[in-house]
């Protein structure tokens, strides 16, 4: 069912773009941007909910309740829920969009791996995934035209982990994995809410930890898995920064270690 609903459609869209543009690296980039565009409303909602939650957590009323009921967890939860309802905030408003995006991430990852098909056994899955009617859209999307997928993109083979070999060095430099780590770090920093970087609350600390764990995790993936995945990560990171910038939520102060006071409440409310 997962294959039928998620991986196969994603794989075919990826292949169709490949058939149209003739370059698998470009098709990964374009498909990533399309997915980012389609999930933009969800992401905008997530940002808005996050900001509203941040604002609430900074409010005097919220801090007073935390202080007042710090020894009564049940009462604290009840009071927090009351405030959420009064202000029309869903406590899961910032989590749900992430959960919705999660299967998309997994499905897209699997579709890239499937489309690259680095061995005959992996090719059996790809051949079965290709919709026969795809070639009605363009003849270059027929099975015979698609296979073999030309996995060369710039200096890399998208089906293999990327390394640049330098004469004199016995090992390759994982340039793409380093770029993935850096762009993930930058994206996490830039998109962290202003209040998170300077405060000591739990959300801020969680965000700071994400800023460390996520770049390391994606660096690890890019180091060991097909470089097509790294192309996806880099594109996704850059597109994510661009989305936040378009919504006016990029926080440059986090990146350069400058202190910046939280955005005024009115700004958050307008969802700018």
């Amino acid at each position: 069912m997962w294959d039928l609903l998620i991986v196969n459609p994603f794989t075919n869209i990826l292949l169709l773009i490949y058939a149209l543009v003739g370059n698998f690296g470009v098709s990964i980039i374009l498909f990533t941007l399309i997915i980012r565009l389609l999930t933009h409303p969800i992401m905008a909602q997530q940002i808005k909910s996050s900001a509203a939650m941040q604002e609430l957590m900074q409010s005097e009323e919220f801090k007073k309740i935390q202080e007042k009921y710090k020894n009564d967890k049940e009462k604290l939860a009840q009071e927090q829920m009351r405030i959420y309802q009064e202000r029309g905030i869903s406590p899961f408003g910032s989590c749900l969009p992430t959960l919705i995006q999660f299967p998309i991430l997994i499905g897209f990852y699997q579709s890239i791996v499937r489309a690259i098909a680095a061995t005959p056994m992996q090719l059996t899955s790809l051949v079965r995934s290709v919709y026969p009617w795809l070639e009605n859209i363009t003849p270059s999307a027929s099975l015979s035209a698609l296979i073999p997928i030309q996995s060369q993109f710039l200096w890399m083979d998208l089906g293999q982990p990327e390394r640049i070999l330098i004469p004199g060095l016995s090992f390759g430099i994982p340039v793409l994995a380093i770029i993935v780590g850096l762009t993930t770090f930058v994206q996490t920093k830039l998109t962290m809410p202003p209040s998170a970087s300077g405060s000591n609350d739990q959300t801020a600390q969680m965000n700071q930890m994400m800023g460390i764990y996520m770049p390391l995790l994606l660096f690890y993936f890019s180091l060991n898995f097909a470089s097509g995945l790294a192309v996806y990560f880099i594109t996704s990171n850059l597109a994510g920064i661009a989305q936040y910038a378009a919504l006016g939520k990029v926080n440059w102060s986090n990146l350069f270690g400058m202190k910046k006071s939280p955005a005024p409440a009115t700004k958050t409310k307008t969802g700018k």
Partner: protein
Amino acid sequence: MKLNRLFLFFALASLAGLLSACGAQPATNWPGVTTNGELIFLSSGQHVYTVQASDGLEVSAGTRFPLEADANHSLYAPVALGDDGLMLVGNASQANHDLFAVDSATGTPRWTFSEVKLPWIAGALTLDGNFYAPAGDGNLYSFSADGQLRWKQELSEHALWTKPVTDGSSVYLATLDHVLYSLQPETGAKNWQKEVDNGIVGAPALADGTLYFGTLSGTLYALNAQTGDILWQTQLDGNIWGTPALDGETLYIGTVYGSAGKFYALNAQTGVTAWVYEDEGSIIAGALVLPDQVIYVTEKGRVQSMNKQGVPVWQQELPKNKIYVTPIQIGDSILVTPMGSEFLMVAYNFTGAQKWTFTPAK
């Protein structure tokens, strides 16, 4: 706070596990099997195992290559057996791309070729003491037995996945680029090349000056091995992945038809279908021809015996297994290499009774 950190850590670790197939080292290709009649050489993941054909026992854990399991070894190509107990196998790992020439008696490497920076998927051919190894970089490499590179010929922008075949005077190699090549063994120079309608995954079968092979479009071809001219071609239902099996005037080949399969018997002279048998499982591997029966295996774990008139004789089911490797006859045994069992090989007699299974000792 510590709980939150732990939660975040485990959430990300779970994501890592999920994306990397739950932390296991998944098989990225099907195993490779070679035999010299007495011994079976099984390339299956991190090792090449040497197994006695008579009883399915590993000769000795000391003959494994490599001796110790190594995550940087992904050995799936069938080994090429050379003179003096030498065997050649390439590494399909994404981290190491060495081609190893190993003493099969001791599991000790004699020489290693490390200049290719992409995985080795296909098995190599041995001819007159020399090796012909198709590589992941699209080149066919020829080595002498002592590891000297004789020549290399660039044939594809894609990895080469198919084992070359020979009639003694030429080397024939099929590619996923829709092209079949005929090359001179001494120099690698091209005699001819023939473009067909789709990618070729299975090695060609060669008999009486004719090359038989199928494509992913399901077209079965017969080519004049001398000239590359098409003698006939015929369209079958589904995709062809395996090598056709020849039995005098008859050609046997299975297809992948969605999740099912079709097993064909055709006239080797004309390509006309004699009979077709439909199976609920896809047929990816080639067939094995025995004196009074023909055996095919399916992706659903079935070992099926047919008589030569297309009537089923016996079958064995290996539930939860997938079989992608062409069965091999060794003496009075039929060797099957499934994926998904606790055992890596199983031998049957000619009536389908199980003789032994092989499970590597830990």
